[in-house]
């Protein structure tokens, strides 16, 4: 039964199930959560391992390499942390230490950027480490287990690294199957060191100083072992499929078997590509299209990929790189694919165009893939194309050009002719109809919106749907307005992990967000969608006024979540909002979800469940009555109406007369 895990959590389970015995760590966004989870398990005694609170990634890497000579070791890092480690990682590959790394891919270099791209993975290509790219939490968990199986194989004995895109991968919560430990133990035998340090009967020396002759022969052996890893990765993937039902290989071919147009890329961005590919498949006037999601990046399965492209009869291949070529001819993935095609298919292979996108957390959306397939189609027709990389989302340097002045003049001088031949075809760029439900939560950091969204995801999964929750992260601290998006896919025959940004429900965790200039909460809200606001004093009419909803067919509902939480003595309003969400969005039924919540809501459990029920019942779209403040005086109305007596003359007989004297 799937458990809701973020990418980091899945990686932590990967290490735990592989029974890692030494886990030094150093925190770095976005992979920190993996180390936090393992520390929690070790400190609770749920995982038997020794953790070291290293003072830098450089030391953490030194420690896994030293410990890796005696026990199974692993750690997690990202971006600059990995760059610190590269100085030492050579010793792992050179010393035959099969330790494991989990990398939450994140941009490196200046300027600092905490969001995702592959520049850290590309930087470690020459450290001799096996590199596997996972596309989601499940693949990460499975790849770590397979990683140790591959690395410790006697024909390899090299370190491995599993890469997962930062935030959209590491912080995306989704259903992950956690295999049972005894099954994993059968798949992955315990660690045996070939040259243990703690064996007096065979004292050994690691890292001796070798002069030229022994050095080059050692390097020859090392490269031989690395190339073995290619075949062994395939074998490990197939064995994993037999035991656990999920098959893995060097790459994944999505779309038509016979595909003239192919887009190739690494990792998690492929989820948007799948949707675009399925949308274009079989459309009139569109040749065979396919998405080549490459999993094993180093050692690069050049022959296998070349043969696959040849079997598919591909005419044009567009390669998306989420990293830069830094003076090379093409970015790394494009360069490797071009070389593979040139070496194994000679002149008969497809033409290759290179596209750079997704840098520093830039989104790789579905329309980008439509553009790339369109480019591939033009190339397949023999139109000229740029030998140097194209760029996504750069206004001055687009892939297709309508008007000349739209492009920066110096580029027009260089590629004007090519652009003229490349025209944008509507049949590729028709909008993709949404076939998933999406919910967006606007909240303030620290209000616990993510906890409630993850709870909802769990309930949805228990109900048999496929859900994905991706919180938007930045350097904002407590109080800033953040968004958390949840996607529900009802067709369980295919996984969808890409957002259409068309919301069925928008939730505001407090009414002050209505006034925030940068957050147009109604953007993207579908016709007939619902807007849920947590407020105890704004009426529905007032909210419609503030947002000048006018006649748009949008349901507006309010829930006094603060009051509910206060009544129960809960610090956060997220449980009440969870109940409110069930009231507004009924596809995930409320009653069965209770079963899930009983076991998975934060403590104090009883109050949280009560808050969910109250949130559900107190959500309404009617006006809220203002409670009259009852008066505290204990004295009769008659007392209050008393007034001093009027003694004017009318009320008593008098003979007095007005008279004018003198």
């Amino acid at each position, binding site marked *: 039964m799937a458990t809701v895990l973020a990418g980091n959590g899945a990686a932590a389970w990967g290490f735990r199930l592989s029974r890692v015995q030494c886990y030094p760590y150093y925190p770095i966004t976005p992979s920190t959560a993996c180390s936090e989870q393992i520390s929690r398990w070790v400190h609770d005694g749920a995982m038997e391992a020794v953790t070291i609170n290293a003072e830098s990634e450089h030391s953490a890497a030194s420690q896994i390499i030293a410990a890796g000579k005696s026990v199974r070791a692993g750690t997690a890092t990202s971006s600059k942390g990995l760059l610190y480690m590269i100085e030492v990682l050579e010793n792992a590959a050179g010393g035959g230490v099969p330790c494991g790394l989990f990398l939450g891919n994140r941009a490196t270099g200046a300027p600092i950027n905490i969001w995702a791209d592959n520049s850290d993975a590309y930087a470690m290509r020459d450290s001799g480490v096996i590199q596997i790219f996972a596309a989601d939490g499940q693949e990460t968990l499975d790849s770590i287990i397979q990683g140790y199986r591959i690395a410790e*194989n*006697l024909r*390899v004995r090299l370190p491995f690294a599993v890469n997962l895109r930062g935030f959209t991968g590491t912080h995306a919560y989704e259903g992950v199957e956690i295999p049972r430990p005894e099954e994993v133990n059968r798949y992955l035998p315990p660690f045996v060191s070939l*040259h243990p340090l703690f*064996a007096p009967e065979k*004292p*050994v020396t690691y890292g001796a100083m070798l002069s030229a002759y*022994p050095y080059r*022969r050692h390097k020859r052996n090392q490269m031989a072992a690395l190339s073995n890893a290619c075949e062994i990765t395939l074998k490990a993937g197939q064995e994993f499929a037999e035991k656990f039902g999920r098959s893995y290989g060097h790459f994944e071919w999505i779309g038509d078997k016979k595909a003239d147009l192919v887009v190739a890329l690494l990792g998690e961005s492929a989820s948007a590509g799948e949707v675009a590919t399925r949308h274009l498949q079989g459309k009139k006037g569109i040749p065979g299209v396919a998405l080549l999601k490459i999993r094993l990046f180093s050692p690069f399965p050049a022959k296998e990929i070349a043969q696959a492209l040849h079997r598919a009869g591909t005419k044009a291949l567009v390669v998306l790189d989420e990293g830069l070529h830094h003076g090379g001819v093409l970015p790394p993935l494009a360069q490797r694919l071009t070389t593979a095609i040139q070496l194994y298919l000679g002149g008969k292979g497809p033409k290759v165009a290179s596209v750079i996108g997704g840098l520093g957390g830039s989104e790789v959306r579905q329309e980008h893939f439509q553009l790339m397939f369109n480019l591939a189609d033009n190339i397949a027709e023999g139109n000229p194309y740029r030998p140097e990389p194209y760029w996504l989302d750069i206004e001055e340097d687009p892939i297709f050009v309508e008007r000349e002045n739209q492009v920066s003049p110096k580029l027009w001088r260089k590629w004007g002719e090519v652009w003229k031949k490349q025209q944008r075809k509507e049949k590729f760029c028709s909008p993709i109809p949404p076939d998933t439900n999406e919910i967006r939560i606007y909240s303030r950091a620290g209000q616990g919106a993510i906890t409630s969204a993850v709870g909802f995801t769990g309930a949805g999964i228990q109900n048999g749907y496929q859900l994905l929750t991706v919180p938007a992260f930045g350097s904002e601290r407590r109080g800033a307005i953040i968004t958390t998006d949840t996607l529900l896919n009802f067709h369980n025959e295919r996984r969808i992990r890409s957002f259409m940004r068309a919301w069925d429900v928008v939730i505001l965790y407090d009414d002050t967000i209505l006034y925030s200039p940068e957050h147009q909460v109604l953007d993207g809200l579908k016709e007939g969608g619902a807007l849920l606001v947590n407020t105890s004093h704004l009426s529905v009419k007032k909210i419609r006024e503030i947002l000048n909803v006018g006649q748009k067919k949008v349901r507006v509902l309010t829930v006094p979540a603060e009051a509910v939480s206060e009544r129960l003595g809960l610090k956060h309003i997220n449980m009440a909002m969870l109940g409110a969400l069930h009231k507004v969005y009924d596809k995930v039924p409320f009653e069965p979800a209770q079963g899930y919540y009983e076991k998975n809501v934060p403590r104090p459990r009883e109050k949280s469940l009560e808050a969910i029920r109250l949130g559900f019942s107190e959500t309404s779209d009617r006006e809220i009555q203002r409670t009259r403040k009852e008066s505290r005086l204990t004295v009769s109305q008659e007392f209050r109406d008393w007034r001093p007596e009027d003694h004017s003359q009318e009320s008593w007989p008098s003979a007095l007369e007005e008279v004018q004297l003198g």
Partner: protein
Amino acid sequence: MKEKQQILVSLNRHKEFVVTGPFVEMRERQGSSGPEKREPTESDKGKFLHPPEILTIEEVAQKPIDGLDTPKVLNAMADIGPEARLFVYRPEGKVTRHEIFEDPRVCLEIQRGAVIENLREKPKDVSGWRTHDFFIDIKGCLGDECGRCAIVCPENAIHLMGKGKGSFHEIDPLACKGCFICWVECVRTAADCILVDGKTFDPGMRAKHFGE
């Protein structure tokens, strides 16, 4: 006024540490029988790891391993070819894991991960480094009562021969680099029985070291 005396909290079973002001003095603790004399013990009998063995087809053939179906193993290894290896892991003598695989290495004399097995190494001959010859006069040497030269030799070239009265030290000609340090130590503090180029007396060297 006598300083207030205080005993330092200590695990030591034989000595008491008395603190007076900033100073600490060690006193015999009553009722302690003094540290029991113990010889430098052999390496402790603690539990250690046992490295796995990686055997070639010949080795398997010569010494069949109990708990393994040797012929079946040999056939499997034969299929792979000359570079087939048998991985056997038997920490307590009983085979717990074994696997047949083809040795990925191209240059077979280099161990995996360029690891060096210390005990298989032979010391390098550095005799070419020295410009003088050193020889210890067997009769003059005090043997195992002294050992000054052995402890200060940078090259571990000086070894104790024999035991007890008749023991003496001998310089390994392959290891000595001729640095004179053993000679200085012997002349200064011990028996002055190290001969340089066969001579015991070298006016220049003595003048340099002792100002005679």
